[in-house]
Each structure stands twice: as C-alpha cells, then as structure tokens.
C-alpha cells in the first residue's frame, strides 16, 4: 500500500501558489515542502529512537544493580533531596509546556509569542541545570562522588547525618552492602550527567533558535526546525520523568 506522502508528485498539478511551491528553504532534492518537512520529522523521530537505545544501556545497568543491591540503592536514594528533584521535575514539565506553546506560536505565525515561549523554555532549562548544580555540589561536599574520596560514613553510620536520619531512620548498612552505594552514585551521576549533557546541547540550540526566531525565520511557514527541536526537548523531559521515578523515589517511607 503506497504511502501517500512518500510518493512525490511528478508534475505541479496544483495551480497558483507557484511561489509557495518553491520557497527558498526547499532543498533541491525534495519535490515539495510537505515531503521535506515529512522527511525531517521522520529523521528526528529516528534519531530519538537511537537516543532511547543509548539511554537503554544505562537503564539496564541500573535495573540489574538495583535488583542486586536494593538496600544500598535505598540508602543512596535517601541522600538525594526529593524537594529539589520534584522541583526539577516540575521545571522540566513546565518547560515542555512552554516549548509546545512555542510550536503553536510558530505554526500560527506569532513571532513575539514564539520568542517569549522559547525564552521561557531556555530560562526553565537553565533553572533545571542550576538546581542540578546545587545537588551535585551537595554530593561533592558529602563525598558521595565515586572515585573521588568516596565516603561510606553516611551509610554505615546514618545517624551522622541528622537531617537525613530524622526523615528515614535508616539502619546502618554492613560494609559489604555499604560499598555498593558507590555503584548507585555511579549510576546517578552517569544517568543524570548524560541527561544534563543533552540538556546543555539543547540549550545551545535553543539560544541559536531564539536569535533566529526574532528575525521571523520560524514564523513564515517554515516550522520544521521548531517542531523537531520540540521533539528533542520533550524527549529530554521524558527521560527525566523516568530518572526521577527510578533514582529519587525508590523508597521514601520510613
């Protein structure tokens, strides 16, 4: 069954709109703007699928070690501040909203609206990274960074950390389980770090987009770039939704 949008049209049967048929952004190897936009969107989805598989390896490692060293993972996750994590989740969700609104602005040719939405998305993204910095700094101070003077004290003697202990009343871990908390933090930094790296790249592209959006580049019919960047941004949001659930919310009941 032929895919209608795939089979190009040999002759320009459509009358009028001749200028719209071949705008400047139509690349020569495509037959129509629809074909080009279609191909670009499909390419973006395929790229996101590769990202799913890329993170997939990390999720596999996480699931295996959480299964093996559950107590260590619980203790490790108690060291993460659930307030910051929740705030970050909310920040990203709102940024996904502003990004989606940006796509709407691009599609409905609202130039200043688009610039506003993209800027808000950018600021929210920056806020996410700011919160992450705070969290990472706390980890560094407490010596919970694998490979860099990693300390088992919080896990073998939980009462040495009153704020965490008063919340969860963790039992002290025996040494052979406590050492596995380092694995938890390796995965924490790996997964959130990889996620943050993708965010930083996204923010870079977003900054470029804001500058271009101000000139009206995305609000004169050529919505592909904004649309496809939106897909990337939402993907980053989805990865965080799972990271939050898996890393922060393991078992917060006392």
């Amino acid at each position, binding site marked *: *069954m*032929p*895919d209608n*949008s*795939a*089979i*190009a*049209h*040999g002759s320009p049967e459509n009358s009028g709109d001749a200028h719209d048929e071949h705008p400047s952004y139509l*690349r*020569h*190897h*495509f*037959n129509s703007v629809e*074909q080009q936009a*279609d*191909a670009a969107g*499909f*390419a973006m989805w*395929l*790229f996101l*699928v*590769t*990202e799913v*598989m*890329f*993170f*997939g*390896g*990390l999720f*596999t*490692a996480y699931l*295996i*070690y959480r299964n*093996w*060293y559950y107590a260590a993972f619980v203790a490790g996750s108690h060291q993460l501040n659930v307030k910051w994590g929740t705030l970050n989740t909310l920040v990203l969700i709102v940024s996904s909203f502003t990004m989606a609104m940006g796509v709407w602005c691009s599609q409905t040719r609202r130039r200043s609206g688009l610039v506003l939405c993209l800027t808000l998305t950018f600021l929210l993204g920056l806020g996410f990274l700011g919160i992450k910095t705070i969290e990472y700094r706390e980890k560094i101070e407490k010596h919970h960074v*694998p*490979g*860099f003077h990693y300390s088992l004290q919080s896990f073998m003697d939980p009462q040495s950390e009153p704020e965490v202990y008063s919340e969860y009343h963790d039992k002290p871990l025996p040494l052979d389980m406590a*050492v*596995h908390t*380092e*694995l938890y933090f*390796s*995965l924490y930094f*790996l997964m959130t770090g990889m996620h943050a790296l993708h965010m930083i790249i996204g923010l870079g592209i977003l900054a470029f987009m804001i500058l271009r959006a101000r000139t009206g580049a995305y609000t004169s019919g050529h919505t592909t770039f904004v649309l496809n960047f939106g897909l990337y941004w939402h993907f980053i949001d989805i990865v965080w939704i799972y990271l939050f659930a898996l890393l922060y919310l393991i078992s917060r009941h006392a």
Partner: protein
Amino acid sequence: MSATIVSLPDQSTARIPKVNYITKENGILSWLLTSDHKRIAILYLISLTFFFFIGGALAGLIRLELLTPQTDLMATDTYNKVFTMHGVIMIFFFLVPSVPATLGNFLIPMMIGAKDLALPKINLLSWYLYMAGGILAIYTMATGGVDTGWTFTTPLSTHYVNTNVLTTGLAAFVAGFSSIFTGLNFIVTIHKMRAPGMTWFRLPLFVWAHYAASILMVLATPVVAIAIVLIALERTIGIGIFDPTKGGDPLLFQHLFWFYSHPAVYIMILPGMGVISETISTFSRKRVFGYTAVAFSSVAIAVFGFFVWAHHMFIMGISNYAVLVFSLLTMLVAVPSAIKIFNWTFTLYKGSITFETPMLYTFGFMGLFTIGGLTGVFLGTSGTDIHLTETYFIVAHFHFVMVGGMLMAFLGGLHFWWPKMTGRMYPEKISQLAAVVTFIGFVFTFFPQFILGTLGMPRRYASYPPEFQILNVFSTAGATILGVGYLLPVLYLVWSLKYGEIAGDNPWQATGLEWQTQSPPLTENFAEMPVMDHEAYDYEWLEAQNQKRQKEVISAG
C-alpha cells in the same frame, strides 16, 4: 565461457557522456564538500580500500606468525595487538560500512528514482565521522596499539591492560555514529523519497536489504556506544560498574557489547545479500524467485537478530536458563537466511546462466556463505559451542560468512556496478581470474581452520602444538593466494578508469532504474523524474523497452 549477456555500445563511436557527476564540478573541495551521494560513495570507496589493505596487512602478519608453532616472529603481546587491530579495522572500518556506504549510497537514490538521499549533508558528515574514527584507529596503532581483542572483554580491558583501549574505544564510538547516520538516512530516504509508482513491493531487493540493515544500524549501534562510554569511565574513574571487587559484573559489558555486535554481523551481511539478489537475477535473466519471501526475510533477519546476542556468551557465566533460551532463539534466526539461499537457488533453476565476473563472485558467495551459515548453527547449539568456542572453528565460521560471504558480495557488486559508476568496463578475463584466485585462496586459508578448531587449537594464540603446523601452513599459503586475489582488482579497476571499454547505459541488460540512465550518471541522477510502472526484475518490460528503442532508432534513421 563465451556466452555472455554483456552488450556494449560500438566502441569506435561511443563516448563517456560529457556531463556527469564526476565532471560536473572540479577541484578537491568540490569533492570534500560535496552533498552528492554518488561522490560521497566514491570518497567512501577510496577510504574503505585503504583501511581494507591495512587490515589485510595485519592479517598477513598473523598468518606469518602462525607458520611456525612457536612465537618467533613477534612477541606475544605484539601478536595480541596485531589480531586486535585486524579485527577492529576490518569490522568497524571495512565490513560495517562497505556495501552500504559505497554501493548503498551510490545506488539507493537511483534505484528508487530520487535525486539524492533525504539528508545529503548528514551523509557527508557520516563520511567525516568515519574518517575521524579511522584516523584515530591508525593513531592507536602508531602509539602502541591495543591488545584486548576487538571484543574489549572486561575486566581485561578495564583493569589489566595498559594499552590504548580508550582511543580505540573512541575510534569505534565515532565510527558508530557514522553508521547510525547512514542507516537513519537510508530509512528516511526509502520511506519518503520513492518515485511515483515505486511501491514497496516494486523496490529492488537490494533496497529491502539495506532497509533491514539500516534498522539494525539505528537500533543496535547506540548500545555499543554506551558500552564504550562505560568502559572509558571504568578505566579512568573506576566507577565499579564492571568491577567484581566493587560489586559490578563484567558480564554486563558483554551483554551491552554483544547486543550491538550480533546485529552488527547482520548489518554486515544483509547489504551483501542485497547485492546477490541483483546479480543472481541479472545473470540468470530471471526474476528473483519468491520476491516477497526474500524481502520479508531481510526484515526478519533484522528483527530476530536482536534476540540472540548471548550466544556469544555461552561459556562466560550467564545462567544455564539463559543459555537455553538464547540457543533456541539462535535456531530461529538461521531460518530467514536459509530462505534466501533457497530462493536464490530457485532463481537459478531454468534461468539462462552466464558466468561474468559478478556471477562468479555470486556463486562463490552461495557456496561459502552456506557453509559459514551452517557452521553458525553448530555454534548456536550450546552443547557443541562449549567445545568449539574460542577455537579456530569460530574464526573459520566468521571468516566464511564475512569474507567468503560478505567480501565476495562486495567485490561482485563493485564489478557489477563499476560500469554504472565510472562509465567503463573492467577487463573481463583478468577479473574472472581474480575471482577464481580469490575463491581458491579463500578455501585454502579458512577451510583448514575448521579442522584446527575441532582438533582444539585455540584462537588468539601466537603459538600452538606442533601437530597443528601442517594445517596452519596450508592456511598461510592460502592467505598469500587470497592476497593476490584482492590485489588484482585494485590494479585492473584503476587501469579500467582510463583504458576500459565504454560501458553505455546498461551493459548487463539489467532491470532497475539505475540502468535506465547514463553511465556515469548525472548529478541529479535523472533528467526527468522517472515513473515506475512495472514490477521489479521485469525482463519482459526491459525487452519491450529495447524493442521500442530499436523502432525509434530505425524510424529516426
């Protein structure tokens, strides 16, 4: 072998078309910054040939060392580096990109009636990533090499060697992205840029094969990418993810590594199978038997290929239940490959077979791939695998499928489409000789290795018990013949660029849109967009076209 289907134009009046993709623009930058898929294919062809011969030289060193039972040519550590780099270069920098990046890039847009791939600049980026990875690999060799085997098994690669694991890992990582982008490009192109009338089931099977391989490239490669990242972090920071002393599991690396590397073998072979579908049809003058079965079996190989990776890990410490499951699944994946072999054989039946060079390579493929594939089934049955794994049986198995299969298909395809890519024919007699020499050399090199493996000679060892020497000498002698067989095409193909006969549009009288246009093609492939109004491999349609053209010539004259 005087019967031939080759039909060349009158050499006294024929000329290479003045305007084509090669003459369109001049200067090195017009090649290095091109977005023309055909030029990018040629760039790949040149660089692939270069890396092939480096990998081949390393193979020569291996075979030289193995002439004698003792480790006398080089130190054991050096031998480890030689076979590792041979594997890394041959797999990541030759086999994986070979057919897709050269023939696939060149032909897929033409076969579907498009002007270029969907993402031409990404195509060029793929080549640059490939070159960057390749240069890193060479740098690795120049600065001491790596000796872990191309499989980077942990904890050897993470804790016990001081060699260039990181740079090699980075080279493979970068080359992996080259592969991902190529696959992504092909999938988008095949879905979105087919000409009017070119439905899925009118596509040449070459396109189906590349579509299936592209799915593998896109879905599997990222997993080895993350595996390499994890190795790098384990080596540098010591995160403990593969370290038993920190609670990690070395087998986790192998799971992630083989999740890609098994589909990788299908990435390598499927495009070659695509070539075989084209050549076997053309040189039997017959439609491929069971088109739908061959098309679907390509996709089936791609899908099932994802479910079997742990058959590379039977003795590594996975659970017996996992061994059972993966062994059963491996039996499944052999079926679609066998379907193809049957269908190609039935294509031959009652066909008008001629033995031009591409067909010689095709016959070589059919025989050698069948043997290689069947021995794969022996290895997939865990009971026999326990005895045969890590021996020369494995080495023989994968060389039969990869070299006897894939490389023969690549050479066959290169010869088949050489007239289209260059406008010139290669010299037939010497090319047939080279094909036969390659076949003989191959059998002498690798068949003894099956025997060596069953007798118990381990792989990746520089020394062996003296009773194995005679078979090793046979193998090295064969390798010398094989080397000649591979060198000859380089020489006569380059010669043909200047002195080869003018080929004309369709020297093989083949069906397929690429043969309905000039050789070499225009940059935009077609003067006007083609409309596909017939089935694939429709020789009656071709005959009708020829008669129509003859009538036109007669009425014009």
